[in-house]
Structure formats: C-alpha cells, structure tokens
C-alpha cells in the first residue's frame, strides 16, 4: 500500500519563504502595472511592503470587546498559510494527504470564514454588509469549483491535489474544467470586478472597515496570501501536466518545475492587474447572477465529461 501522507521539510521551507515574501511583491507589480495602464508612474514596486511595515507598527483600535474580532485576522492568515502547505513546490509538497483538493479549498474558504466572523463581530452595518457579500461570493463560487473537481474526478480519477496534475489527461472537458477553475479562483480572490466585499467607495472597505493598525495589516496580508495561493494552484495545474516528464526526476527537475511555477505566477499577476484596471466592480446581485449562470453552464461540461470527451 502506498504511503499517502508525508511531510516534506524542504517543501515547508520553500513554501513558507514564498508565501511569506511573495504576496506584497506581486501586489507591488500589480500596482505598477495598473498605474501604467492609467498613465501614471505608480508607487515603487516595494510599496506594499512599506505599507504593511507601517501597518504592523501601528496599534489597532478596538470597536468591540468581542474576542473574535481580534482573533479573526490571525486565523485568516494561518488558514491561508495552511492552504499554501498543501500545494506542490517543484517536486516538494509540504504536507500531503491523498484526497486533499477538497481540503485545500475548504481551508482556503476558512480565510473568508474568519474574515466574515471578524466583520460580523462589530456593530457596524458597513462591515456586516461586507461580510454577507463575501459569504454570497463564496456561496456562488463554490458550486463552480465543485463541478471542476467533479470533472477532475472523472478524468483523472483522483482528487489528490498533487496527483491531479500528474494524471489529468488532455481532453475537451479538462480544458473547460481548467477554465472553470481559473474563473473560480479569480472570483474567489476578490479581484476587480469581484472586490464586492471590500468595495471601498460603496461600503467604505466593507469587511475591513473596522480594522486598523496591525490587525488590518495581518488581514491584508492574509488576503494577499490567499490570492497567491490560488494563483500558485493554477500555475501548478498548468505547469506539471506539461513538465510531467521531469517533474519527478530528482532535484534538478524539481527546481526546474519550481522555477516555471514561479515564472508563471509572475507573468499571470500583471495580466490580472490589467484585467482589474479595465473593469468596473460588479454589484453583488450581478456577480451572483453571473456565477449562477456559469454554474449552470458548467453542469453541461460535467455531462460532457461523463460522456467521456
């Protein structure tokens, strides 16, 4: 019987380093790209680090005595990091279970759950509206993810995060499943036009409105880390099927794969930024309607996969 659970120390180190360092940098790139699209010079690439450094240095104001308000940002951050540990870095996977893609999405959803609980602990309608919008986004994105997983289960015959990219065959429905996954990841990351839960100009920051100082910094970091984790998942799913041959061949192969993953993330982020810059924000009912429509379409894709294409 094959061993299905493992812990890779190297994976943990690489994962921690990447998730700890990369998110603000990527955000810096995105800001720069957006600025260029908007005919501006934009802040320095490291600006997000400066921002976070400043936030970490500031005390936080407490709008409520409810402890969950203070605990939530840390829970969110820890969840984002935990999710990161389930992803492969090159050939190293920090923590591996065999049916873990469901776990991965659930752990990632815990970021949202923590944020929502924090947002609802305060007596503030702006923050509450943000919380319930975030929940509705989760509600409407989840079934799309579910269908994508269903297609993978059909096609790859596994739900292991690290095994799917190794086993997934190239077929019509898997391509569509990839598209669904990309869409779901994009929506779940809360990029424009899905930044509905924060919607600064509508509900003054929504879920973030009551947070300040270090707690805000932690929360922002959790959100950035979540984005990176989702992007890394996508990059893994794209990289490993292509580099299947060398992915498992020793250290060098692992490093090559890691490098390709990283490059893919670095390329994808500016693209996302461009997409963000050229879109307005959806209203929540529009976003829910869009997601529902895509879910219904995706059921057709599932049927296609079941037929065997």
């Amino acid at each position: 019987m094959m061993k299905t659970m493992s812990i890779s120390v190297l994976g943990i180190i690489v994962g921690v380093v990447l998730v700890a360092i990369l998110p603000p940098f990527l955000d810096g790139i995105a800001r720069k790209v957006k600025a260029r699209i908007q005919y501006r010079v934009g802040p320095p690439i490291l600006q997000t680090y400066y921002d976070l450094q400043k936030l970490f240095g500031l005390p936080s104001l407490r709008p409520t005595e409810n402890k969950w308000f203070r605990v939530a940002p840390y829970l969110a951050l820890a969840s984002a990091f935990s999710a990161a540990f389930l992803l492969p870095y090159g050939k190293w996977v920090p923590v591996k279970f065999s049916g873990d893609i469901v776990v991965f999405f659930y752990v990632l959803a815990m970021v949202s759950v923590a944020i929502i609980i924090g947002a609802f602990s305060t007596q503030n309608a702006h923050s509450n509206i943000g919380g319930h919008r975030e929940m509705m986004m989760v509600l409407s994105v989840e079934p799309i993810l579910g269908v994508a997983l269903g297609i993978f289960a059909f096609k790859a015959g596994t739900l292991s995060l690290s095994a799917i990219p190794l086993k997934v065959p190239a077929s019509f429905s898997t391509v569509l499943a990839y598209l669904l996954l990309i869409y779901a990841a994009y929506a779940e990351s809360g990029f424009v036009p899905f930044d509905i839960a924060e919607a600064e100009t509508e509900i003054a920051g929504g879920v973030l409105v009551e947070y300040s100082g270090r707690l805000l910094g932690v929360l922002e970091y959790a959100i950035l880390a979540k984005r990176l984790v989702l992007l890394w998942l996508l990059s893994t799913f794209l990289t490993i099927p292509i580099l299947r041959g060398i992915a498992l061949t020793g250290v060098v192969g692992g490093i090559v794969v890691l490098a390709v993953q990283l490059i893919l993330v670095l390329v994808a982020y500016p693209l996302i930024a461009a997409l963000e810059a050229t879109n307005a924000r959806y209203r929540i009912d529009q976003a829910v309607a869009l997601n529902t429509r895509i879910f219904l379409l995706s059921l057709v894709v599932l049927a296609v996969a079941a037929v065997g294409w």
Partner: protein
Amino acid sequence: MEDVKISYTESLISWKRPDLRVGVPVTVKYPLVPTEKPPEYRGKPHIDPNVCIGCGACVRACPADALTAEWDLENGLKSIVSNPARCIRCGRCEEACPTGAMKLTLEFELATPNKEDLVEVVEHHLTKCKKCGDYTEFTERQVEKAFQILPKEIVDANALGEKMQLCRECRMEESVKILAAQGRIIGDPLLLPPQHAKGGEK
C-alpha cells in the same frame, strides 16, 4: 546675469509650457521637479517697496482684507501690510494700484511653518504738517507723486502746494479762514468742532 527686457504681452505669446506628455505616465515628481506657471498666472501678490507710495488704494480694493493699512501717528509711519495667507488672488489690488507697485507674482508655493513669514510690510513716512507739526495722513511719496502727476496749473490754481503740506485739521482751519474771509461762513471759526483730532481711518 543678463536681463533681457521683453514686454509682458510678448512674454505671454512666447511662453510655452514644457510638454509633460512626452512619456506616457503623466506623474510628475512635483516638489522635486519645479512646476512652471504661465505669465498670466495670478500668484502671491508682492509690493515693490521702491515704487509703492502708500496711498492705500489696494487696501480699499481688497475684498478679502488681505491688504491692510496700519497707522502709527506717533512716529509718523503708515504701513501697507500684505498677508498672502488671506489673499484670494483676485488681482483687484493690481488693477487699483496707481504706480504699478503691486504685482501678482508667479509664486504659489506658500507652505510655511509660520504664517507671519509671508507677511510683507511696506513702511512709509508721513509728511509733517507745516503749521502744527503733527503728522498728516499722507505719506511723503504720496505727496511727491501728486505733484508729479498733477498739472502745474491745477496745483497753482488751488494753492495745493501749500495745502498738501498741512494736516487735515489745519487744512480745515485754513479753508474756514478763507471761507470766512469771503464771508461764506458766519461765526467764529474756532468754535467749529475739531474734525479729525488724531488717527487715521480704520
């Protein structure tokens, strides 16, 4: 430094704004890169102390009370005080100034830790009354300017040369005397109430 004099109108026509849209980003590192203003720009007002005669026309024109006149009749001083912090850059003072001393500059960066730094004060000596020795309400330069611009006939006809050297009271007395001599006022001129004993208008 070479000081090439061109007329104001010429400068208006020849002035071209440095094109900021060469590179795509329009962001300018503003405080580090100075921004140029066109010659029309109405910036902070500045009083040329050499040309100002202290007449106070600008003070009367100023809708925002940025320009005030301060009187010190003890020491015979009249100051025109310009406080750009109150100024609304309407340019009325510039129009009202008879000598062109008041000019709006191109300067607009007025940030300062101390608002007092911005204040410009032009002090003028008041003329002394030839008769009683008190200070009159006219500055020396005002009188000088008046003689410059008034045609000689008018000065002579009204005996302004004499009158302008007197303070208001004495001038009044003189006038009363003349009028009395002409028989147009009946009674003792000295019983008339003194009009402006001391102090200027405020």
